[in-house]
């Protein structure tokens, strides 16, 4: 008895087991495993959660042991498919090409897996009507246990067809029916789906507005056109809290101030955003310019860099500096600044640029300074004192060369910005430079012309004197030769001859004297010429030289 009981029990247990396995196999068959890559993700996910191979959030992520890049296990297996090695799958990382192998399961960061499992997804059956969004980690459970639209075994006896879980308690629905409206034959279990998405004839009445709509359009009717659904006022974005039915929305919009203002305000808002972006850009530019200006100021006035920095930092003070500085310093100082520059490197850069702020505020400081170097602030070194005289000499020359020089055109009142001030200063300096340049050129030309003229005259005189000298020497030669002849002829002494020879001797002596004076005069003239060439002579030497040569001629 007990033995039979045991057998029966055993048989029953086996049957139950097989039934359980069968039903499990069937339910798995009926609901194919969820493919995570085909899910619709509700939560937004970024590239960091995305497998580089399938471009989906990782499914069973693995980390590569060498480079720490993550991939889905399937993706990386598939990608390494052809390369087999006995020590486990290995290959190059698809992202960085590092030779790598799969990390251990425990190497995969748990936090990554948790983040992935927490991503919200729509139920895989959402197209068939299931409205649920679940976490990705719970999708399998949802499908296998809860989802009303998942399939399970039909409750009917000897019926092996699948049925939706929500319909399971209505008994076997696998009998033929035909649609009331389109008369298509189908099984009862699929009728609902047919109405929901296929039937082109069936109309239903909207429970809210009592309108007849196509059954398959009911969803879009509810969300878009149903008159009875209340929608927010168009002015909701700027504060109108009223909701009205779609049919009355128009009338509400007509009376609602918010709704009228909404488009204006939204357009203004977009414009304001634009302006804000532009302003941000401009302020950035201004900042760059300001720092540049500060640097320039630092370069220009290194001695009072602290003050300059203060001024640059304190924006409100800059216009003040401009007004006073431009009036006080610019016109009189420009020539001086320039002369300091051109008279050479002897002036150290610390002496040349006197900051406007450190100048004494006398009415015409430039004039005072030109008159005497005492007016210089003590900050200027002794080098400046030494250098001052040549500068002033140059300055007077410069003024003579172009007496009609207009004052620099920079005293045009307050400047818009320190940068403008600097620029105008620079511009006027450049003007001065070019003017002085042309004056210098003119002077040079005049100078060389004068030298040439002088030279020409002197050369003429020299050649004239040379000719005179030649004539004289010929005369002397003639005189000596006659004298000699006479002496040889009167070998026997006679009184007459003595007196005559005496006369001849004196005349010869005089002639020799004359020649020697002429020679000294000539030498003097030659020296004059050489001096005239070497020195930058003005016309003042001319008359004296002519006197000299006249003297020489009279001596002859």
């Amino acid at each position, binding site marked *: 008895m007990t033995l039979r009981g045991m057998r029966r029990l055993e048989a029953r247990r086996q049957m139950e087991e097989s039934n359980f396995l069968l039903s499990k196999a069937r339910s798995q068959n009926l609901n194919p495993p969820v493919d995570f*890559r*085909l899910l619709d993700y509700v939560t937004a996910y970024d590239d960091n959660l995305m497998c*580089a191979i*399938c471009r989906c959030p990782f499914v069973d992520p693995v980390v590569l042991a060498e480079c720490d890049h993550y991939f889905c296990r399937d993706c990386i297996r598939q990608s390494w498919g052809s390369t087999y090695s006995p020590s486990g799958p290995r290959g190059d990382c698809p992202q960085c090409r590092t030779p790598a192998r799969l990390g251990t399961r425990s190497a995969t960061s748990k936090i990554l897996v948790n983040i992935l499992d927490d991503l919200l997804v729509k139920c895989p059956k959402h197209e068939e009507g299931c409205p649920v969004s679940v976490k990705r980690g719970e999708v399998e459970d949802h499908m296998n246990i809860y989802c009303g639209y998942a399939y399970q075994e039909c409750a009917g006896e000897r019926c092996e067809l699948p049925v939706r879980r929500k319909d399971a308690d209505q008994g076997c629905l696998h009998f033929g029916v035909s649609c009331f409206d389109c008369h298509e034959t189908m099984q009862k279990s699929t009728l609902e789906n047919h109405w929901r998405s296929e039937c082109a004839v069936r109309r239903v009445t909207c429970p809210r507005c009592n309108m007849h709509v196509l059954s398959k359009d009911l969803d879009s009717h509810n969300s878009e056109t149903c008159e009875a659904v209340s929608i927010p006022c168009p002015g909701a974005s700027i504060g109108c809290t009223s909701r009205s039915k779609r049919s009355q929305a128009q009338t509400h919009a007509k009376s609602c101030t918010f709704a009228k203002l909404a488009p204006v305000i939204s357009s203004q808002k977009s414009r304001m955003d634009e302006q804000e972006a532009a302003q941000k850009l401009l302020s950035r530019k201004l900042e760059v310019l300001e720092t540049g200006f500060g640097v320039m100021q630092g370069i220009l006035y290194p001695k009072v860099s602290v003050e300059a920095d203060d001024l640059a930092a304190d924006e409100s003070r800059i216009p003040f500096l401009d007004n006073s500085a431009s009036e006080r310093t610019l016109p009189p100082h420009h020539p001086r600044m320039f002369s300091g520059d051109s008279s050479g490197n002897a002036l150290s850069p610390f002496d040349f640029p006197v900051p406007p702020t450190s100048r004494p505020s006398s009415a015409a400081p430039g004039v005072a300074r030109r008159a005497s170097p005492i007016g210089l602030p003590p900050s200027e070194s002794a080098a400046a004192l030494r250098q001052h005289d040549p500068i002033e000499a140059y300055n007077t020359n410069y003024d003579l060369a172009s007496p009609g020089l207009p004052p620099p055109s920079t005293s045009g009142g307050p400047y818009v910005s320190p940068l403008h001030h600097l620029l105008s200063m620079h511009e006027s300096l450049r003007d001065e430079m070019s003017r002085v340049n042309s004056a210098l050129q003119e002077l040079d030309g005049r100078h060389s012309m004068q030298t040439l003229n002088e030279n020409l005259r002197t050369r003429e005189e020299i050649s004239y004197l040379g000719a005179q000298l030649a004539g004289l020497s010929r005369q002397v030669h003639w005189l000596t030769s006659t004298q000699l002849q006479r002496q040889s002829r009167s070998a026997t002494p006679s009184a007459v001859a003595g007196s005559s020879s005496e006369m001849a001797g004196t005349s010869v002596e005089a002639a020799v004297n004359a020649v020697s004076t002429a020679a000294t005069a000539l030498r003097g003239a030659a020296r004059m010429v050489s001096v005239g060439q070497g020195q930058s002579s003005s016309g003042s030497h001319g008359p004296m030289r002519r006197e000299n040569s006249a003297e020489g001629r009279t001596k002859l």
Partner: protein
Amino acid sequence: MTTPLPKRIIKETERLQSEPVPGISAVPHDDNARYFDVNVEGPGGSCYEGGVFSLELFLPDDYPMCPPRIRFLTRIYHPNIDRLGRICLDVLKNNWSPALQIRTILLSIQALLGAPNPEDPLNEAVAKQWKENQAEAIKTAREWTEKFAQKK
């Protein structure tokens, strides 16, 4: 189409449309989502500047495990592109990696236009010219661009 389109291809196509790469456009055919019409602008500063070159791109069944097939349809004077428009580019062959995408590949091709590599030629004649008389070769490339490519 027997097999459904992989999610990756759908995503790549969407992204190519929504945020296109500057100078590159790729549009799938209506009847075959794996076949793309591609237009690539010649990179600025190269001898292909100002021309728009059309290419065809096909994603094989095992994409992304194997590289897409790409071919120039516009004639182009380039040492790494032969008369049939085939392209000699390592990432299109053995250096393919499934982490690469259509956009990255098209960017590589645009870069190849900017930097021809006559040391690894596909078109021997062009490569020879390129090595011996580069100025002349660049001039020819300009002329061809003028003649065959669409204007930008």
